[in-house]
């Protein structure tokens, strides 16, 4: 009886794994089959208005990139504060909690917030609004990574630095951060991969444009928003372009993830 139950259980777990992997494989298969079918050079050389994706891909990267560039110093400084200056006070714990709450806030809610403070006052969607939304989503992730990575730095290293008379600033920047550098880099890459695939917070902050644009003060081209729009159009060709965009987006996210993972493994060795 026990042995039969055990057998059944093992079969069930294995089956569950197979079912789960089956769905995920199905998605990837669909994505490749549909996405590759529409992949051509034109996708990269033409803008959305001409049946390509050049402007929206660049737009998505610009918005995520700018959000990351602003997010890195803010997130890292906040993480440094938590580990190096905060001590074990109630305040640091509170800020950690806040960061976790922010991290789990639905991204569409962040979108509504940005809509209220930027889009309504200025009267139109803009690249900066999209950047702000992505920034808000990104900061808590960077805070968390920095916090976690600095936690791994041995106390002795800090003490040794202080003991030779270095200032806290020096110890932090030159010893502690250097020690945790790869880990933090990985975290930032993963955070970038995370926001680059965001759609909901961009829907009505950046909107999306069919034309080439690098002007963040006006409506900005977005790959993810365009995918959403394309996929829900009746026109077969548009839907196809949507799949191609989806494929490229996923490929991008997965590659960034792999790079981050690789860097992290190298550091551990």
């Amino acid at each position: 009886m026990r042995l039969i139950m055990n057998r059944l259980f093992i079969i069930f777990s294995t089956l569950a794994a197979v079912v789960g992997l089956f769905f995920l494989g199905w998605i990837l298969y669909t994505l490749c089959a549909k996405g590759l079918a529409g992949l051509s050079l034109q996708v990269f050389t033409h803008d959305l208005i001409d049946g390509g994706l050049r402007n929206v891909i660049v737009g998505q990267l610009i918005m995520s990139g700018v959000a990351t560039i602003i997010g890195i110093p803010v997130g890292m400084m906040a993480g440094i504060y938590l580990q190096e200056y905060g001590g074990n006070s109630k305040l640091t714990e509170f800020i950690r909690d806040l960061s976790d709450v922010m991290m789990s806030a639905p991204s569409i809610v962040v979108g509504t917030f940005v809509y209220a403070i930027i889009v309504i006052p200025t009267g139109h969607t803009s690249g900066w609004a999209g950047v702000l939304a992505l920034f808000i989503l990104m900061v808590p992730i960077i805070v968390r990574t920095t916090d976690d990575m600095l936690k791994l730095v041995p106390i002795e290293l800090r003490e040794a630095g202080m003991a030779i008379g270095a200032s806290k600033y020096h110890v932090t920047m030159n010893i502690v951060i250097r020690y945790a550098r790869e880990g933090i880099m990985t975290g930032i890459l993963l955070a970038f991969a995370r926001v680059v695939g965001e759609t909901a917070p961009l829907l009505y902050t950046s909107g999306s444009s069919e034309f080439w644009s690098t002007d963040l003060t006006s409506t900005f081209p977005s790959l993810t928003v365009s995918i959403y729009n394309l996929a829900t159009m009746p026109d077969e060709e548009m839907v196809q372009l949507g799949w191609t965009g989806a494929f490229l987006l996923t490929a991008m996210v997965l590659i960034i993830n792999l790079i981050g993972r690789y860097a992290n493994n190298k550091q551990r060795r």
Partner: protein
Amino acid sequence: MELIFKKLAQISASLLFVILAATTIVLYLSAKPAIQEFGAGFLFESRWGVEETKNVSEVVPNQELVVDGEDADDFMEDEDDFIDDEDFVTDDDTESETNDSEIIYGALVPIIGTIFSTLIAMLFSIPIAMGIAVFLSEIASATLAKPISIAIELLASIPSIIYGMWGLFYFGPFIADIFGGNTVSLLVAGLVLGVMVIPFMAALSRDAIGTVPDMLKESAYAMGATKLEVIKDVVFPYAKSGIIGSIILSFGRALGETMAVAFVIGGVYQFVGKVTDPTNSIPVVLANSFAESSGLSLSVLFYLALVLFVMSFMVIVVAKHYLLRRK
């Protein structure tokens, strides 16, 4: 330098607080007109954007309001405000016949849709994700487990819009073939959400199970326990808080998810009679209606966003509670 550095760090940390506080305040202020107009009854009202004529009989809407009031005993005061407003509006309306109607908004349909799609997602994903976690950490050999683990983690990073598209074009029709009904429905939305959180939940649960010391498992095997017994009696209890934490975090993800659901839930304001009917969820309402809203209808959307924010806040508080107990 030293001082500037410290100040900057402090400012960055406080920025977190500022952003969160600002979000709450801005959402509240933007939602205020709607909150004043509909009060907490909003949460229990099932109509959306329906014109309600006042001059047919003044008594009818008020009766309904009282019924609503009973639904929400705790919020009686708000309801009273509501009734006052109504009376006020009605007074005004006596002057012109054309304007004597008012548009009613209620959140009940998307709230129910959100909760039910999330519950379906959990029912579907928990057994599968636990199966995967157990398979990876206790059944598969290391050579098999490692690549699958990496694959699972990578899959957890796929943008949710991809799940939505797949749901719309492939999974929805597949489900409709099996269960009948629409290719977009509460059921499809729930299952797509489920598929979406599987890798996330499985990866977190596997990490939690990974914290169980080998020696502990071996000592259970050394007493003649079978694999099932070791997992049931030793591994799960030991990793309990981590596993529950992973489930709650996944729940939170599914609750606030927009894109995976937007494609497949249907986006219509109706209660579901069957799970295969289309309905709506809060994030989807927000995603679909912002562009064309203004005035009160916009304020209503902010009210909805606030409701969602509070719901996800409660989820994270519960999750923290569980994860903290591990320490």
